[in-house]
């Protein structure tokens, strides 16, 4: 393979690739942010919710986590429209990924909160803190540290899962790449290049996670 020729082709195809990359990043960011916000509430409900609420939320997370992401994506695009919720492929895809993300983040948050010894809550109570204060100053900051590595993992999973949106016609990086391949027949080169871009995104997420972990580490 002539490397110069390949770079030349990539350069010519830069616009569709960049657009695809932009869409992939938007999908991932939206899904991760929405999924994290929703997931925090899921985690709080699982940990502190009254029993009926806990059962409902437990059912939600178990159901979502037990379903393949592809099925969620397809259901969100094809099934929701039958009940009158007409979403475009991008919206439907982001919704499916956000829901998927929320169930994982919910479990991460629950695990992080439950890993904090009860003595912490008791000590906070003993100095007269209310529950919201205890959560804000004692439990939350500690849970954040516990949750971070698993959360970074989930975020990277979301980037990878965004490729599934190509099935419902969202022109993200993978679909753009496939279009380029069908025009140029350079499958090895373009798949390799797309893989490289996905790696760079996830590597950046991982570095960011490490950075935050280091920043928030408690000296011992």
């Amino acid at each position, binding site marked *: 393979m002539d490397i110069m020729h390949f770079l030349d082709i990539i350069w010519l195809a830069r616009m569709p690739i960049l657009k695809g990359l932009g869409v992939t990043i938007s999908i991932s960011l939206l899904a991760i942010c929405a999924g994290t916000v929703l997931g925090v509430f899921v985690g709080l409900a699982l940990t502190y919710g009254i029993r009926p609420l806990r059962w409902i939320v437990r059912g939600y997370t178990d159901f979502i986590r037990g379903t393949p992401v592809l099925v969620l994506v397809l259901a969100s695009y094809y099934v929701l429209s039958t009940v009158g919720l007409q979403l475009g492929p991008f919206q439907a895809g982001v919704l499916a990924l956000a829901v998927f993300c929320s169930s994982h983040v919910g479990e991460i948050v629950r695990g992080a909160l439950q890993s904090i*010894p009860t*003595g*912490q809550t*008791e*000590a*906070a*109570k*003993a*100095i*007269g*803190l*209310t*529950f919201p*204060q205890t959560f804000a*100053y*004692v439990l939350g*900051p*500690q849970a954040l*540290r516990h949750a971070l590595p698993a959360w970074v993992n989930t975020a990277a999973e979301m980037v990878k899962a965004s490729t599934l949106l190509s099935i419902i016609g969202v022109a993200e990086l993978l679909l753009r790449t496939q279009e380029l391949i069908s025009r140029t027949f350079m499958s090895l080169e373009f798949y390799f290049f797309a893989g490289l871009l996905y790696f760079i995104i996830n590597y950046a997420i991982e570095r960011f996670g490490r950075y935050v972990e280091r920043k928030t580490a*408690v*000296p*011992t």
Partner: protein
Amino acid sequence: MTNNLLEIRDLHKSYGAVEVLKGVDCTMQQGDVVSIIGSSGSGKTTMLRCINMLEEFQGGTIRIDGQAIGYDVVNGQRRRKSEREIARQRALTGMAFQQFNLFPHMTAVANVMLGLVKVKKMSRDEARTLAETWLDRVGLRERAEHYPGQLSGGQQQRVAIARAIAMNPKLMLFDEVTSALDPELVNEVLQVIKSLAQDGMSMLLVTHEMRFAYEVSNRVIFMNQGRIGEEGNPREMFHKPQTERLAEFLKSSTFN
């Protein structure tokens, strides 16, 4: 009777079907130092934890400075106070725990400051000054910026005591504060407690350190199977136990 600092009447507490406190009565005056001794499972720690509502109790009343703790009686119905009210009442007492329970993500001084700023609503500067004063008092002024993970067990426990006492509680509760410490670290913590007692701090201690209970307290309570088995001044209790159960307990303990 109205000037009792602590007044416990007929305290009952069960975990499900298991009754751990079967009617405990106890009063303390300002400045009293009372030690609670007894074998494990006798209800000592549970009694202490009821006083600041870390445990719910099903019967009886606890009053601190005349205020009924945890529950109101409205039209003959016993009703739990609001969380906010209970949180406020918890600040009447300070508590030191067996496992220290310092907040690991905060420095020593931040541990002490948290309650001052968030509960007492002091400014950060005021709180820091007071926190540093108390850290100095427990001999840890120069460790103020250390995290709990960087301190020895004895130092952590002293910070925890400073954290509780900086809140200016009416009554300090000590729950087996030396049980988790290496033997050579026990003394530094006991010295701190002793000096607080000499300053007139009212305290209630659950302890296995018989020698310490003997030296520091003006009254000792022996708990036995969820009831007060015997109580009195330490001299009589340790040298002339009235009940066979206490005599037995003292024989098996380290006091000699």
